[in-house]
């Protein structure tokens, strides 16, 4: 059974069909790439899965259960986490606090009592937060305000914050935007390491160097519709994809 399944999903904004009859099935453990030209509906798809706005038509199921009735925060507690295209950290909170406030998974709620979870000090969450700081390479900046971090560090912190919710499915919305090629390489290692831990990833990305290197399967969107799906090699050879990206007639 697919972990995430979209059936005939549509989202229209007025007359604009941002997503139009999209079918997707992301299998557990996969890194699933979602690519397409600007405005093809990739970010809208991520926002629909995260529950930012309702569907116009269609259905989304996570672990076989319909997501429609769940508000955003409950989808996250069900095991879906995300990062944002334009980084959205809590700038006036420290690095540690950014990870701390994200501990809302059922496991975390079961581990500590209600009072300890809400009114306990920072040290109560050490065991969970220190590994995340190591993972993101920010251990030496734990008390720094998030707004004082460099761009690359902010991206890493946002990924770690998403991991702090203990997701089964991670939605990454253009995580490599604005990164240089060395940083893209490090991001690639991180994504593969998450895959190794069994986290399923839906990756929206323009940087082909990253997409082709980490994904198991790719779907290509254009004008809200899926024009191709397959392995990275199949996608690279697909004439319809070339046409969408390069315009004009396929070579």
């Amino acid at each position, binding site marked *: 059974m697919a972990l995430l399944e979209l059936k005939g999903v549509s989202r229209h904004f007025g007359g604009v069909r941002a997503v139009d009859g999209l079918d997707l099935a992301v299998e557990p453990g996969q890194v699933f790439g979602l690519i397409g030209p600007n405005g093809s509906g990739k970010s809208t798809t991520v926002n629909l899965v*995260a529950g*930012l706005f309702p569907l116009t038509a269609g259905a989304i199921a996570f672990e076989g259960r319909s997501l429609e009735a769940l*508000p*955003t*925060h*409950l989808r*996250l*507690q069900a095991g879906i*986490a*995300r990062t*944002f295209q334009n980084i*959205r*950290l*809590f*700038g*006036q*909170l420290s690095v540690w*606090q*950014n990870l*701390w*406030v*994200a*501990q*809302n*998974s059922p496991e975390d709620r079961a581990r500590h009592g209600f009072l300890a*979870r*809400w*009114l*306990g*000090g*920072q040290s109560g*969450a050490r065991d969970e937060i220190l590994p995340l700081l190591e993972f993101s390479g920010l251990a030496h900046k734990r008390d720094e*305000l998030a707004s004082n971090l460099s761009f690359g560090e902010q991206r890493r912190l946002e990924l770690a*914050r*998403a991991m*702090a*919710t203990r997701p089964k499915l991670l939605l990454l919305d253009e995580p490599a935007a604005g990164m240089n090629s060395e940083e893209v390489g490090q991001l690639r290692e991180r994504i593969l390491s998450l895959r190794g831990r069994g986290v399923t990833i839906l990756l929206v990305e323009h940087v082909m160097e990253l997409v082709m290197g980490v994904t198991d399967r790719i779907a290509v969107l254009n004008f809200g519709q899926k024009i191709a799906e397959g392995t990275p090699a199949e996608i690279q050879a697909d004439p319809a994809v070339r046409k969408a990206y390069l315009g004009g007639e396929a070579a």
Partner: protein
Amino acid sequence: MDFYFGLAQIIGVHTLIGLSAYIVLLTGQVSLAQAGFFAVGAYAAGMLTVLAGWAILPALAASALLGAAVACAVGFPALRVKGLMLVIATLAFGEGVRLFFFNFDYQVAKGGVKLGPLGGEGFRQIRYFPENGWTTMDVMLFIWAFVVLTMALLWWFDRSRYGAVLRAVGEDELAAQSVGLNLTAVKVSAMTVGGAIAGLGGGIYAHYTTHIEHASFGILLATFAIAYPILGGLGSVFGTLLAAVFVQGFLVEGLRFLGDWRNLLFGALIVVAMNVRPRGFLDAPTLLWLKRLFARTGGGSGAA
């Protein structure tokens, strides 16, 4: 000396209502309802000691609980709206409470005298402190004990995960939702704690003035409530205290010799203060600087 004790009482009560707005402001909500919760607490505590013969502590506990309950009930519908809409909604609630007490009569004969709230006349003879022989200093210390307790509670919140969550919601609601936080629950909880603090402050206020009336709980008090934390800065609870001392101690009392010119200067000084320190007296960089200064001068243990 009694003049200064009296001034300290006013500052203490105003600090409490400022703190009640502080915790709500942390979640990014501007509430003008705090004066309403304050009024509910004042009337409730007064009626409990005067009419029901309760002691002061249980009466204050009841007024805090009632303030919390009303704030929680108001919070659910009110927090569905944001920004200016929330300001208007909470303003309407505060005025509603004031007009309720303008029309509220509940008088009981006690030893030949009729006591209790009497509409526009107000609620006179809330004489628990004088009847029990408390001096002005006793009352002042009593008030400041509650101010210290409340500040300690909020300071603790600030260092806990709850405090970080409040600030996270205040900073970016979308991101807060996206890490699994329930916005409604967080905002209503802050409103409820704020309501408890305002209710407590109102209960204390009713007893030290001995006479309350609807006009004291209007828009002016609601404005003061949010002005203290904004002027003082949201970095720390001490900012609210500092602002209450500055406004009540310096602007209101210290400039009294200026007569009618005072109100003009009052407004101008607030404008100047907000221009010089747009993020309040105690903003994040100032706090960091103070923390380092404290650590260097060997304050040691407390600076962690």
